[in-house]
């Protein structure tokens, strides 16, 4: 057992390398701060929508417009007088969508005739169609309920309730994702370079000449990087909680323990990459290559159920990121404890053991 000398050596080297310190400690903090500045706080943010009210004299058309802009996320960008103008604004990208209320809207409605409200959306803009459609649908529904009350006709009223809400802010919703990205990419990339750096600089030859086992090398590096990456973890989590008032609904200790498990998992994956890579460039490339699917298929962009089963079983369910997001969201947003997310813990633990032991077994203690 020559674990301690290796740990001490690695820590010394890490602390002396401004690049690794910057990447491991400063960068995550910066990202979290940037992120909080961008999405934190309580002010509402909205995308602009053009409105063409071709029934300006009617009262119901204006009531509908009021209902539309009660919805969060959209605001009236400008009012125009014709459908063509409204569509042109969307086409030019000045607004994300246009709502066109036809002539005689109020009159037709009061006469009991069917009316159409036209919605034009910019399908090229992500999220915009969904936000606008739901705002208009809600508004139409509210208008119908109000008309039904005024004229004494029947209406089906929807009562909406949320689970674990409605107080989850944008910042809180995005915190698990940011934590996931930072705890995955940064430690994995850093440790994946470590062995390759020794090989490239030639220090590996002197190191393996010593009576040192493969376990000492992998374990020592792993422990040192875990210690340093914990600073990263506490830093980002601290910024989220203290600076941006992110509320952790479950026990904080459980959240930290769960994050640590994920951290250890991404480090062991990085170590595995390092053992297989011939040089630093290759290791970096592999880390990024492995990072991309976890960005696309781990439930960050869309619910995993939207992903085709083949990819879901092959990539999503084998990605540590998927289990981390599930567990972290559960503890932070739903108030679960570590015991409640034991399945996610088990998945991460199994992956850690597999990556780590593969790294130990596959480490070549020879040159050439």
């Amino acid at each position, binding site marked *: 057992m*020559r674990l*301690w*000398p290796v740990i001490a050596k690695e820590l*010394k080297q890490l602390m002396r*390398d401004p690049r690794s310190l910057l990447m491991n400690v400063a960068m995550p903090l910066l990202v979290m701060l940037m992120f909080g500045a961008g999405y934190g706080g309580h002010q509402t943010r909205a995308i602009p929508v053009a409105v063409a009210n071709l029934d300006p004299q009617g009262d119901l058309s204006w009531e509908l417009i009021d209902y539309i802009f009660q919805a969060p996320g959209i605001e009236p960008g400008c009012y125009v007088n014709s459908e063509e103008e409204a569509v042109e604004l969307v086409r030019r990208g000045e607004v994300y969508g246009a709502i066109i209320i036809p002539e005689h809207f109020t009159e037709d409605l009061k006469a009991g005739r069917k009316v159409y409200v036209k919605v034009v959306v910019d399908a090229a803009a992500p999220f915009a169609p969904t936000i606008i459609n739901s705002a208009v649908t809600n508004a139409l529904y509210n208008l119908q309920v109000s008309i039904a009350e005024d004229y004494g006709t029947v209406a089906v009223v929807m009562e909406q309730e949320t689970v674990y809400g409605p107080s989850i802010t944008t910042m809180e919703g995005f915190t698990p994702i940011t934590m996931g990205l930072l705890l995955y990419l940064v430690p994995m990339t850093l440790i994946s370079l470590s062995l390759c750096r020794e090989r490239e600089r*030639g220090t590996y030859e002197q190191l393996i000449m*010593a*009576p040192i086992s493969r376990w000492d090398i992998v374990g020592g590096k792993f422990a040192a990087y875990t210690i340093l990456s914990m600073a990263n973890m506490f830093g980002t989590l601290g910024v989220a909680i203290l600076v941006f008032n992110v509320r952790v609904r479950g026990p904080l200790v459980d959240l930290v323990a769960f994050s640590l498990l994920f951290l250890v998992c991404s480090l062991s994956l990085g170590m595995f990459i390092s053992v297989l890579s011939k040089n630093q460039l290759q290791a970096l490339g592999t880390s990024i290559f492995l990072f991309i699917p976890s960005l696309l298929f781990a439930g960050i962009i869309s619910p995993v159920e939207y992903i085709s089963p083949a990819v879901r079983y092959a990539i999503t369910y084998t990605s540590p990121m998927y289990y981390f997001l599930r567990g972290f969201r559960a503890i932070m947003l739903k108030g679960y404890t570590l015991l409640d997310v034991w399945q996610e813990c088990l998945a991460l633990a199994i992956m850690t053991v597999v990556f780590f032991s593969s790294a130990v077994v596959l480490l070549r*203690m020879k*040159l050439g």
Partner: protein
Amino acid sequence: MRPAVVLENVTKRFEDVVAVDNLSFWVEQGELFGLLGPNGAGKTTTIRMICGLLEPTAGEVWVFNFRQPRDRMAASKFIGYMPQHFSLYEDLTVYENMMFFASVYGVPYSVRRERIEKLIDRFLLTEFRDKLAGQLSGGTKRRLALATCLVHNPPLVILDEPTAGIDPHLRYLFWRFFEELRDEGVTLIVTTHYMDEAEFCERLALMRSGHLIALGTPEEIKRSALRGELIRVTVRTSRLPTRAIANLRCVRSFELVSAGGGQATYVLLVEDAGRDLIEVLRGLEAQGVRLLSIEPIYISLEDAFLALTGGLAR
């Protein structure tokens, strides 16, 4: 006493390149042994197989009672190895590098500090003690590498090109260190492509293109290489006197070293330079060749090497 290192019919093949071909030699304990040869001769490959860093394709490598690389962990405690290129940590200080290797080699904590201080002192590293290794000059790095490979008091020290590219003063100092270590009972294997240095070694193995071409003391190698001695002759001529030299009976073979400006210089192989000098002189003058100078040549190991590899005395 069993030899410190034994190689038996060792071959190392990298894909389709044979780096070391059927190499056998042994190194006695307490010997200063030189492994000599030009770049690409297979010296580093041989060294790495002795260290257990490479696995031979065929044959056996033994270090003391350990079979390499099977017993690498056990054997490495007895080996101090200084690779060809600086391979200590440039972002650790001189002291930290030595401390790290002392601890991975399991040097007892009680003697670590004292031994490192002694080595720092011996290899003139005192003023660099707390400097980062990356900031040291080439020669100082080399001294640090040597000091570090001695940190666990190994009975066998293997040095791969320890003097390549350093100034003559330090080269001389290094060979003094090696002789001191030998006198302390340490077995040393030193590779070099400087033939002049090899004269310091007690025994030599000469390698070329992966083959062993000679083995023995420097004197043995010189004698066996040429099977005779050399004379250098410079003549004034407009036409090369090749025929005249070939007519001399005492000359076993000869080679044109330089020609031009109405002069030509030859090196002649004879049995005894002192005796045959006169005969060459007379023989050439008798054939009308005008001599400018004639002298016996001191045979260096380099000449011996060239002779053995076919550069001279074909």
